[in-house]
C-alpha cells in the first residue's frame, strides 16, 4: 500500500535499478529451469541444439514411462506423504508444548533446532546401521521412518512458531466455555492451525520428495524414489539428457501444482499465526 516515491529526482533511477536487479535475480533463478523444460520437449537428437524453432515432441516422456520411472514416482508419493503424516502429529504435539509451556526450557528447543544443522550424511550412517539390523533397508517403510525422523525437528520448529502466534485467550475462552484442555486444543487450536499445519505439511512433503542421500543409501531398485531414479538415468546408461530433463519436469510438476493451490496457506502459515 505504501510507496516511497516522491523523493525527487533520485526516485526514477532508483526504481530502474531495483527493477534491473530483480529481473537479473529472476533470470538467474529461472533460466536453468527454462532450459530443462525446453530440453525435455526436444527429441534426444536435438538436446544440445540452440535452434529456438526446433519442433517439440513428447518422445522423452514416452521413453521415460516405458521404464521404471512410474514406479519411482509412486514410491516418492508414498514415502513423502507417509513420512509427513507420521511426523506431523508428533511435531504438532511437541511444537504446541514448546509454544505454550516452559517445559524443557531453551535447551530442549535449541537441541531440536541443532539437529537441523547436522549434515544429513551424519545421520545417514547410523540409520543405515540400524536399518540393517532391523531389516528395514530397501523397504518403503524404512524410508518413511527415516524421512519422518528427518522431518520431525523441522516440522516441530515451524509449528512451534505457528502455535506461538495463536493467542492463548482462545484456549482460555474454550476452557471457560466448558472444554477440557484437550478439547480446547482439539476443537479450537487445531482448526485454527490448519493453515499452519498445511503449510508445514507441504514443506515436509517437499523435503522428503527432494531428498537424495537417504534415498540413495536406504533404497533398492524397487524402492528408488524420483531423485534416485533421475540420478540413475544420468549415470547408468551414459547421460540421456532428454530423459533426465523429462524426469525433472515430471518431478517438479506436482510440487508446482500443489504449492500453487496452497500458496495462500503457505504465505498465511509462514507469517506464523496471523489469526486475528
Amino acid at each position, binding site marked *: 500500500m505504501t510507496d516511497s516515491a516522491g523523493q525527487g529526482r533520485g526516485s526514477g533511477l532508483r526504481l530502474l535499478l531495483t527493477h534491473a536487479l530483480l529481473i537479473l535475480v529472476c533470470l538467474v533463478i529461472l533460466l536453468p529451469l527454462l532450459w530443462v523444460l525446453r530440453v525435455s520437449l526436444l527429441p534426444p537428437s536435438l538436446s544440445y541444439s540452440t535452434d529456438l524453432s526446433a519442433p517439440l515432441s513428447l518422445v522423452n516422456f514416452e521413453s521415460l514411462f516405458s521404464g521404471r520411472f512410474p514406479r519411482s514416482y509412486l514410491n516418492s508419493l508414498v514415502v513423502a506423504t507417509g513420512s509427513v503424516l507420521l511426523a506431523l502429529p508428533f511435531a504438532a504435539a511437541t511444537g504446541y508444548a514448546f509454544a505454550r509451556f516452559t517445559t524443557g526450557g531453551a535447551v530442549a528447543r535449541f537441541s531440536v533446532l541443532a539437529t537441523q544443522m547436522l549434515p544429513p550424511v551424519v545421520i545417514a550412517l547410523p540409520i543405515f546401521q540400524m536399518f540393517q539390523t532391523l531389516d528395514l533397508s530397501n523397504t518403503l517403510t524404512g524410508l518413511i521412518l527415516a524421512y519422518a525422523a528427518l522431518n520431525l525437528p523441522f516440522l516441530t520448529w515451524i509449528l512451534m512458531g505457528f502455535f506461538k502466534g495463536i493467542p492463548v485467550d*482462545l484456549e*482460555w*475462552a474454550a*476452557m*471457560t*466455555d466448558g472444554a477440557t484442555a484437550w478439547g480446547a486444543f482439539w476443537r479450537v487450536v487445531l482448526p485454527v492451525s490448519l493453515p499452519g499445519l498445511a503449510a508445514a505439511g507441504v514443506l515436509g512433503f517437499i523435503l522428503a520428495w527432494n531428498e537424495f542421500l537417504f534415498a540413495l543409501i536406504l533404497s533398492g531398485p524397487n524402492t528408488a524414489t524420483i531423485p534416485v531414479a533421475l540420478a540413475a538415468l544420468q549415470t547408468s546408461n551414459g547421460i540421456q539428457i532428454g530423459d533426465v530433463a523429462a524426469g525433472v519436469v515430471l518431478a517438479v510438476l506436482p510440487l508446482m501444482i500443489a504449492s500453487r493451490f496452497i500458496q495462500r496457506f503457505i504465505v498465511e502459515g509462514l507469517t506464523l499465526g496471523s*489469526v486475528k
Partner: protein
Amino acid sequence: MASIELRGVSKRYPNGLYGVRDIDLKIRDGEFVIFLGPSGCGKSTTLRLIAGLESVTSGDLLIGDQSMVGVPPRDRDVAVVFQSYALYPHMTVAANMAFGLKMRKMPRREIATRVDRAADLLGLSHLLTRKPAALSGGQRQRVALGRAIVREPKVFLFDEPLSNLDAQLRAEMRLELVKLHRRLGRTIIHVTHDQIEAMTMGDRICIMREGRLIQSGPPLEVYANPVDTFVARFLSSPPMNLLPAHLEVDGDGLTVKLGEAIRLAVPERHVPAYRAVAGRPVTFGLRPEDIHEQPPAPTQQGFEVQVVALEALGAETNLVAQPTASGALPEITARLGRQARARTGETVTLYPDLLSMHLFDPETGAVIPRPPLDAPR
C-alpha cells in the same frame, strides 16, 4: 449462590515474582465490581485466578461458598469476555455463541432459542452466519458478550472488554453493560484501567497496585476518601493536586502553610482529626473541582496564581497555574466552568474549598484520616 470470596489469595510465578499478593475480598451475589489499576497491577491476574485459568499459589478462593481450588474452569460456571474478544475465528457468530452450550450437551433446539434471544438482545441477528474476521470491532465485542450471555453463568468476568473500542462506542457500551447487569442480576467483575468506567459502571471499585488490593468501596466514597496519594491521583482526570505543605498550630485551629507565604485555615470540623500531625510536613491534596474562581464561602481565603495554560474543553475549562508565592510549589490545576474568565499569563486569585481537603503522609503517601465527608450523593 454466586458470591465470590478471596481469602489471602496469592499468585507466585516460578521466577519468584508475585502476580497478586494476599488479596482478601468478598463479593456479594449480584454485585457489579470494578477492578481498577494501572497495567501490571495484577487485576487481570486476579480475574484469571477466579476463572481458574491460572492456579492460586496460596489462600482460598470460593465461588458460591464452595472452594474452587483445583476446580477446572469448565466447572466453575463463569464466563469471561477477553480484551482481545478471543472469538473462535473458524466458527460463525452463531457457532461462537453456541459453543459453550454444545460443550454442556444442551439440546439443539434449546441452543438455537438461546442464541437467537441473545443475538436479538445485542442486535446481532443479521450477523449470525458471518465469521469474526468479517465483523467490525464493535460487533466482535458484542459477539464476545453474546457468547458469555447465552451460557447464563453465575459470574461474568470482563477483562477490559471496552479498551479496543473508540470513545463513542465505549461510552455506549458502558451504559449497555450497566443495563445488562440490571436485567440479568448476575455477579459481574469488570477489569479496567479507565477511570471513567470505574466511576460509572460498578457498585464497588477495587483499586489494585503492584499485586495488592489497596482500596475497595463504592465509587463516590473512594473518590471522596482516597486512602493514599496513588488512589487520589489515579481516580480522576485531571488528577488531584498534591502540594508539599506544613501543618501549623494557630491558636485553637490549624493552618496549612504552602510554600513561604500561603496560609490556609483548616476548617473546624477537620481540626480534631488533624491535630495529631500538627507541626509536621504533610502533603496537601485538593481536587481540581474544589478550586474556584469565586470564594465558595465569604470567609474563604484565596491565593494568587499565574495562569500557565487554559484547556477549554467546551463544557468546562481546566486552568493550569503556578502559585506566585515564593517557595518551590508545583503547578496546580483547577477545574472551572465553561465561562472561566482567566487568561493565560494573567495573575488571578483562586479559592480552594478546604472542606474537601486531604492530608497525606509525605513519606508513605498514606492518607491522614479525617471524618469522611458524605459522598455528593
